[in-house]
């Protein structure tokens, strides 16, 4: 730690991410969200849905009547859907398809478009 004035370009606000890097890092973030929120949530939903008839009707009524809860559940599963979409993109790139700069840009935009369309469609179903 002698030379403390070394230039370190790790300021995340100054670095401009290319869109393919953006989908890659959000894939990771989505993965963390899924493990810590969607996974416990789905176990809880399974608990409500499978124990008995009362809990099942309670769950369906809650999802129909409370738009906050419906939004939270839908958002959690949309994050999972985003992770799947970008994950499929990564799997295709692992097979050495579409690895060029241009192709990865196009596939990122394509994945984002599909996800935004599904977000809008889900919002239309809920509200």
């Amino acid at each position, binding site marked *: 730690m002698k030379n403390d004035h070394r230039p370190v370009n790790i300021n995340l606000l100054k670095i401009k991410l290319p869109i393919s890097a953006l989908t890659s890092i959000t894939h990771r973030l989505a*993965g963390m969200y899924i*493990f810590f929120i969607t996974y416990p949530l789905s176990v809880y939903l399974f608990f409500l849905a*499978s124990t008995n008839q009362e809990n099942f009707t309670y769950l369906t009524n809650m999802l129909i009547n409370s738009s906050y809860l419906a939004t939270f559940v839908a958002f959690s599963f949309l994050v999972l859907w985003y992770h*799947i979409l970008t994950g499929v993109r990564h799997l295709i790139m692992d097979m050495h398809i579409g690895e060029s700069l241009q192709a990865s840009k196009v596939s990122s935009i394509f994945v984002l478009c599909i996800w935004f369309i599904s977000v809008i469609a889900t919002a239309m179903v809920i509200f």
Partner: protein
Amino acid sequence: MYLVYFSYSNCNGYLLVKGSTIWYLQRCSSIFIFIYIIYVVVFIISSLPIAFNEWFLFKSSLLFKLSTTTAFLSILVHAYIGLWTIGTDYLTPRTLGFLNFTLSKIADTSRLLYNILFTVLGLLLYFYLLLLVWI
């Protein structure tokens, strides 16, 4: 203990499992989870508006029980590898040292705690789910 040892010893570049095996495990598990999700989503969409009896029959079938058990085991493996990768990428003395020198000193300890946290959480939820599915 083995899992904790495995994740903790890894920062010294010392691997107990071949890196390519971990890589293939994560990819193969993701494909299996994807197929399982399609299977469940197709059932839910095909039986909307969903009734309890229909759902109960579906969730009592042996295929559902077996596939849920294996799919959530795959999720456990997949998530363990992914979260462990994130830990070894960001919770290291080098990466945290970019932010703060004192943070870099507690990087190894915080990574160990983070590894224990997600391992325990994942296993607990998995065993609870197994209880729900099979009993």
